[in-house]
């Protein structure tokens, strides 16, 4: 790694720096806490001990936890393909002959970053938290409870996931059905799903 890469502003490089900082802060904090624990009990309620705890128990660990969250939430967005149970869907994404919406979006790079996460999350704070809670549930199933034979979504993909990108696009607005006075309210409200007319986003069954 040359000097330019070390200080580049690329997100992955920033995350590496944040991870390193988190590890350093954690080790310093652990050292301070260990020092506190090895002192005699009478010293532990003295003012120097309280200052030490302020730094080693409160400030540094809090910063470490914050960095752990930032780095973790960033990395988890690209971890969908790490579980083998997702292999059929990942294979479909990369299949040049596939006609599914997910494959087209992926191969044409219509979603440049975090292609899985962009669709499989809501928008706004509540949606992102729900997506993260779902991720925890997936890890639970993968490592503890077991993965069901057939994987299917708990509820249909919200139409607003598609509309978030497409609603104001010229290519969307020039389609007559999208702006039809009768159909447009049904589309915008989610009553009429995009997949009633458009291709399936993913293959229906495991390949």
């Amino acid at each position, binding site marked *: 790694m040359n000097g330019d890469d070390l200080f580049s502003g690329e997100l992955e490089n920033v995350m590496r720096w944040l991870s390193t900082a988190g590890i350093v802060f954690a080790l310093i904090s652990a050292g301070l806490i260990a020092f506190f624990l090895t002192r005699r009990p009478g010293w532990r309620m003295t003012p120097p001990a309280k200052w030490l705890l302020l730094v080693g128990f*409160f400030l540094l660990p809090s910063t*470490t936890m914050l960095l752990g969250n930032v780095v973790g939430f960033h990395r988890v967005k690209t971890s969908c393909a790490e579980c083998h149970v997702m292999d059929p869907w990942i294979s479909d994404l990369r299949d040049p002959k596939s006609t599914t919406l997910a494959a087209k979006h992926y191969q044409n790079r219509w979603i440049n970053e975090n292609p899985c996460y962009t669709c499989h999350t809501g928008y706004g704070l509540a949606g992102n938290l729900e997506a993260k809670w779902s991720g925890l549930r997936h890890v639970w199933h993968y490592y503890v409870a077991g993965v069901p034979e057939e994987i299917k979504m708990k509820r249909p993909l919200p139409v607003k996931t598609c509309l978030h990108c497409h609603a104001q696009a010229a290519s969307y607005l020039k389609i007559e059905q999208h702006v039809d006075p009768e159909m447009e309210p049904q589309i915008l409200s989610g009553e009429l799903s995009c997949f009633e007319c458009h291709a399936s986003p993913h293959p229906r069954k495991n390949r």
Partner: protein
Amino acid sequence: MSDPSPPEAKPAPAEPRRSILALTIACVLALVGLAVTVLHLAWPSPLMFTLFMVVGQGSFAAAMAVYLAVILVDLRRRKVL
């Protein structure tokens, strides 16, 4: 000659011992949280992230709760609060 000032109440010795014990427990919990966090940052994976979210942050949150309780007790003992 009688002493006009009332006898001072001696501070309870048991409370600082309890506070010290509570701080020790909080420190151990914090060390557990920090260990999981270091593992998560050094070897990232979905499982480590889950352990960080549940065990790491849970342990540290418990440590902070005990730490804040000790601070409150100490402030009340000194009649600041």
